[in-house]
């Protein structure tokens, strides 16, 4: 067992930190107030390779491992949650699902441009009537010759209005033997005829990001764009969550760290009753809790990253990491506001944004109530992992970093 990060991981951490701190942090309050995503964010993350961090070089990526993905998410969310959300949906839900389930042709067509950051991906499962209960979703995909025709509306989709492709789950069987067998997954080109998208305004948090809807009216999707087999959509969606939730967990660790750093700095500055508030034990208790929660959240996500590198199924551990870190980040943000007093209640300081952003992560990628159900299922022995037709491949440095013919390495 080795708890240290090697030079590669340390340099990844530093590089992503510098990007987020230098290029995003100075302007984030402005974009958060405007409720808009800075047009710089996606192109810059693409150019720097962050959007392709953990994909094989032969598939347009940077050839790094799952731990690098987690470290990058931590650094991004330490500045703003919306940066990490990009990783959750573009890399986690969309890209990694293509890596796990895609045919070679699908990887060539969709994954390579995603990994290079030339195209943006998202994951579209939720609808106005179905969130936690994914198997109940109503968007339909009807076979029409060699195509499918998609109809319905996806709601609360991160990057809906920015993405080029969506990994989208739709109903292909209205009367399946088992509820979950009625769904199939598709890679939908969001520039197709019949697709309209828009952003939701007035959100509590992630205001500098894009969360929206995707409406589909007789959208023609070729059979070649179906990911996996017909009826495999539920399994694909659940495995997409194993990837997405990992990025949420790692990001939330970054948010706890940001709350801790802001609180420590403020507690040393602000004086009451003749001494810095850092000297008061009740303030110290808050800071101690943030520090230990950060450590726990970090240990949990790094363990999941390690499991992913080994190619070991991690639904249970990922669920715990996601739930713990997001609950703890909300608590840390709330306590950071307490440390800041009335100033914490104003958007002149960062911590109120942290609180608003932290709340969302307790809802998406499985509400934290759903995560309790998942964990209880494993703990009680009611739930076990069944082998999937295609598992997420283990990280193999040699294979990941080999250059295949015809695919140039981006510099």
């Amino acid at each position, binding site marked *: 067992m080795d708890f240290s990060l090697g*030079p590669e991981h340390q*340099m*990844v951490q530093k*590089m992503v930190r510098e990007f987020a701190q230098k290029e995003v942090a100075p302007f984030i309050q402005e974009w958060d107030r405007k409720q808009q995503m800075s047009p710089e964010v996606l192109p810059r993350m693409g150019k*720097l*390779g962050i959007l392709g961090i953990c994909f094989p070089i032969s598939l347009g990526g*940077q*050839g*790094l491992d799952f731990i690098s993905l987690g470290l990058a998410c931590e650094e991004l969310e330490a500045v703003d949650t919306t940066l990490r959300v990009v990783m959750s949906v573009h890399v986690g839900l969309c890209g990694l699902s293509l890596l796990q389930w895609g045919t070679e042709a699908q990887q060539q067509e969709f994954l390579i441009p995603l990994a290079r950051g030339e195209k943006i991906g998202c994951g579209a499962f939720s609808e106005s009537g179905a969130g936690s209960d994914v198997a109940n979703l109503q968007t339909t995909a009807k076979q029409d010759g060699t195509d499918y025709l998609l109809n319905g509306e996806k709601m609360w989709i991160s990057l809906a209005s920015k993405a080029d492709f969506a990994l989208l789950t739709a109903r292909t069987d209205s009367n399946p033997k088992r509820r979950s067998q009625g769904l199939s997954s598709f890679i939908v080109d969001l520039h197709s005829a019949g697709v309209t998208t828009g952003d939701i305004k007035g959100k509590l948090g992630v205001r500098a990001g894009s969360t929206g809807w995707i409406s589909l009216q007789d959208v023609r999707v070729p059979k070649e764009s179906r990911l996996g087999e017909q009826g495999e959509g539920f399994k694909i969606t659940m495995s997409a969550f194993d990837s997405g939730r990992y990025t949420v967990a790692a990001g939330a660790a970054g948010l706890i760290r940001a709350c801790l750093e802001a609180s420590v700095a403020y507690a040393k500055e602000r004086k009451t009753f003749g001494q810095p508030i850092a000297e008061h034990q009740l303030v110290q208790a808050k800071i101690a809790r943030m520090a230990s929660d950060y450590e726990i959240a970090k240990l949990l996500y790094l363990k999941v990253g390690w499991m992913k590198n080994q190619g070991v199924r991690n639904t249970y551990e990922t669920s715990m990491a996601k739930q713990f870190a997001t609950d703890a980040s909300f608590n840390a943000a709330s306590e950071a506001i307490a440390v800041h007093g009335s100033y914490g209640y104003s958007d002149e300081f960062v911590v109120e944004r942290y609180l608003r952003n932290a709340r969302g992560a307790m809802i998406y990628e499985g509400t934290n109530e759903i995560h309790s159900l998942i964990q209880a299922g494993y703990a009680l022995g009611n739930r076990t992992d069944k082998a999937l037709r295609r598992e997420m491949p283990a990280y193999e440095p040699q294979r990941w970093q080999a250059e295949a013919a015809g695919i140039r390495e981006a*510099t």
Partner: protein
Amino acid sequence: MKIVVCVKQTPDTAATLTVVGGVASWGDAPLVLNPWDEYAVEQALRTKEAHGGSVTAMSLGPQAAKESLKQALAMGCDEAILISDPALERADSLLASAALAAAIKRIDAPDIVFFGKAAVDTDTEVTGPQVARRLGWPSLNLVAAISELDPAAKTITVERLLEEGRQLVRSPLPAVVSVVKEINEPRYPSFMGIRKASKAEIPIWSASDIGLQPVPEPALTWPEVIAPVRAEQSCEFVSGETPQQQAAALVERLIEEKLI
């Protein structure tokens, strides 16, 4: 072009200097690539991108300084060399420049050597010019722009940033150029660079490898380092109805404190 860039590992700029047992200490501050040197590395890389060739990053320091060289490799330098020797541990700028110049002479026909303006820890701003002097090359310091560089004619024209304004200087190559931060915006390391750097084996040159034998004693030593007493500051407002009363109250307070 054969391009060399000299870099130093320094404490992070947020670090504070304290005195522990009569010795200056940066505590356990993280060690980084000297921030000024990032601009030098960037300029070296841009020079290579414009004119071809290769960039060698060179550092004088302890084994741990390899980390900073890795940072330079991750940014895109082609190779890195660490000059490290117990005899060079307490090098002042005279000795450091002797070691760096000796090492640069071992490199096949360099055209240009870049330095950052200063190292944030020692802050002498002389290492670059001293290396130039030892090599017998022109020294161009405080360089804020390279306006022209002709590898065939072996000439360079630079803009020096002076208090009075900018000075245009033309010089033959090879030359030593030390840069200020106005010259460019350093890039982040690329992931590809990071992968390569993390695997790179960095050769170590000892004093005898660079022909610096015997190693001269440093001219400067620090016989004693004293930390200044930290002044406790506090602010007090003296009040009074009229300016006269305020002045009287102030005088009273100053007498009380035995200041007048």
